[in-house]
């Protein structure tokens, strides 16, 4: 009996999200009396599979098939379903990224099993009658829900950023086992047909520094000083929902529940009141500096550090100071 962790990777490089899932999975598998295995799918999976023993996987299933060259939610979901049937796994875990939740939802629909998305904690001893209990995220994290899960095969994702991915204290064998699923051509209908690269390098979700602007910035043009500061700090600009609704920035810059979840070393939130829907997208930041004229704004009271003042004066002054110190 095993817990199978779905590990996502980008052409062979494991995602941080996968390491979070493995980190979350280790104590869960131990408490449930299950062996922890991992599955990596598609082109590059071989490279991603090596070293998973270090993260506590005893068996690493490497799935390959001509239809698994690029991501496809149905192809990936069906692959995991066949692996679950083949190995007799009784639980499946992934990180609750968009992709992780989508693949596990596919598995759930195909197996007709319940699926509890975005858990913060899971207790496999649960209610004492074989059901698991868990606390999961609602409203992107501003509300929590305790649930019981009654299922033959437990399907769970762990909320992204709920844990930090670290290697196992005691490594497992990490034995690589190839797996060849039988895939119907029908799953090809949802395999990625093409990719469009818009930005190379750092992005909102990976940037070490995010300089955010809200309604207080005032216009699309007034974001220029924020861009300048972000450029100096090797970061990127983000914004609130009010900004995208006003058409000042593209939606891809939006930080929040319906935008991007960020986790930078520091988030400089300027002119942002800090509505809950924005906060849940920013709360994984390691440090938050709020710049606001309102001492009582939510963003200010929740931030570790704040400057009270007009961002139009404060931001350029910070940029100048950074440049001055660099000489």
């Amino acid at each position, binding site marked *: 009996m095993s817990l199978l962790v779905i590990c996502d990777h980008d052409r062979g490089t494991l995602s941080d999200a996968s390491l979070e899932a493995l980190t979350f999975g280790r104590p869960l598998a131990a408490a449930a009396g299950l062996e922890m295995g991992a599955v990596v799918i598609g082109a590059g999976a071989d490279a991603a599979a090596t070293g998973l023993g270090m993260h506590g996987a005893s068996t690493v299933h490497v799935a390959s098939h001509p239809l698994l060259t690029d*991501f496809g939610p149905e192809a990936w979901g069906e692959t995991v379903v066949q692996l679950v049937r083949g190995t007799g796994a009784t639980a499946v875990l992934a990180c609750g990224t968009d992709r992780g*939740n989508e693949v*596990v*939802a596919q598995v759930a*629909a195909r197996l007709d*099993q*319940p*699926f509890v*998305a*975005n858990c913060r904690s899971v207790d496999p001893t649960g209610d004492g009658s074989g059901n698991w209990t868990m606390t999961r995220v609602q*409203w*992107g*994290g501003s*509300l*929590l829900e*305790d*649930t*019981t*899960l*009654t299922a033959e095969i437990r399907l769970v994702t762990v909320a992204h950023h709920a844990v930090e991915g670290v290697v196992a204290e005691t490594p497992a064998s990490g034995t690589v086992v190839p797996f060849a699923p039988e895939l119907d051509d*029908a799953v090809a*209908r*949802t*395999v*990625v*047909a093409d*990719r*469009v*690269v818009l*930005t*190379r390098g750092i*992005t909102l*979700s990976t940037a070490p520094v995010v300089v955010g602007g809200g309604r207080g910035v005032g216009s699309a043009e007034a974001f220029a000083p924020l861009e300048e500061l972000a450029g100096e*700090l*090797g970061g990127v600009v983000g914004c609130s929902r009010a900004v995208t609704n006003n*058409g000042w920035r*593209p*939606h891809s810059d*939006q930080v929040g529940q*319906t*935008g991007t979840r960020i986790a930078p*070393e520091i988030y400089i939130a300027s002119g942002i009141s800090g509505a*809950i*829907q924005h906060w849940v997208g920013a709360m994984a930041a390691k440090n938050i500096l709020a710049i606001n004229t309102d001492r009582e704004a939510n963003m*200010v009271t*929740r931030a*570790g*550090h*704040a*400057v*009270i*003042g007009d961002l139009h004066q*404060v931001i*350029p*002054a*910070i940029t*100048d*100071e*950074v440049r001055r*110190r660099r000489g």
Partner: protein
Amino acid sequence: MRILVCVKRVPAPGARINVTADGQTVDAAHLGFTTSPHEECAVEEAVQLTEAHGGEVTVMTLGPAAAEEQLRYAASVGAHHFVLIPINDVDWDPQRTASALAEAVAAVEETDGAFDLILFGNESADAGGFQVGVRVANHLGRPIVNGIKGIDIGGEQGGELDEGVAVARREIDGGFEVYNVPMPAVLGVKEGINLPRYPTMKGRLASKKAVVATDERTVEAGGQVRLRLHRPVEQISETVILGTGPEAAPAVVDLLEELGVLS
């Protein structure tokens, strides 16, 4: 084109959410309700697609009787037909919700013909189960891709342009994945795919006359059972005020140096 959009009535995002004493649901007193944001964009997308290609938009919701408000709002921005699957005030679990929706979709399709496209929001703003659309697509035997921020009708299939293909763009870090999905298909869309319009006066009048069909469904509960909702313990931290106005800049840069982001 025949397009169906499934929407959910949720408390207006941004409000402080309180929980009822029994922890079973949110306290609706003092709350405004709205269409879940991804789904509001899905309705807009459906209306735009039918404006460009002809056809009609049906909007379906599973929710309390009050969810009729969200269906009428959809009417005010250009949707044509409306179906309410009534439940009592407590959310149904995702499996149960999906089964009821799939049955109701099949019932509409039996009389009126298949939908070319069914749109869901990527996830609901409140429960965020990330699965109802996938389950409904599976019940109906149709392809589904989530996270969609762009849809064009007509795409390449087998080296030729095929009007029966929906080209769907999914936002990923730093770009897009492109999917050529043969219709009938299901797509889970995200906010940002468009900027939803506001209702016009004409739209508001039309919404008052819109006919909402009711379709009661009795389906079994799934394996995920809510024990209680609760608010997370807020980590109250004292905010360190670094200063006031531009004079605070040196203190800010000290902090940046300390965090090692100034290298």
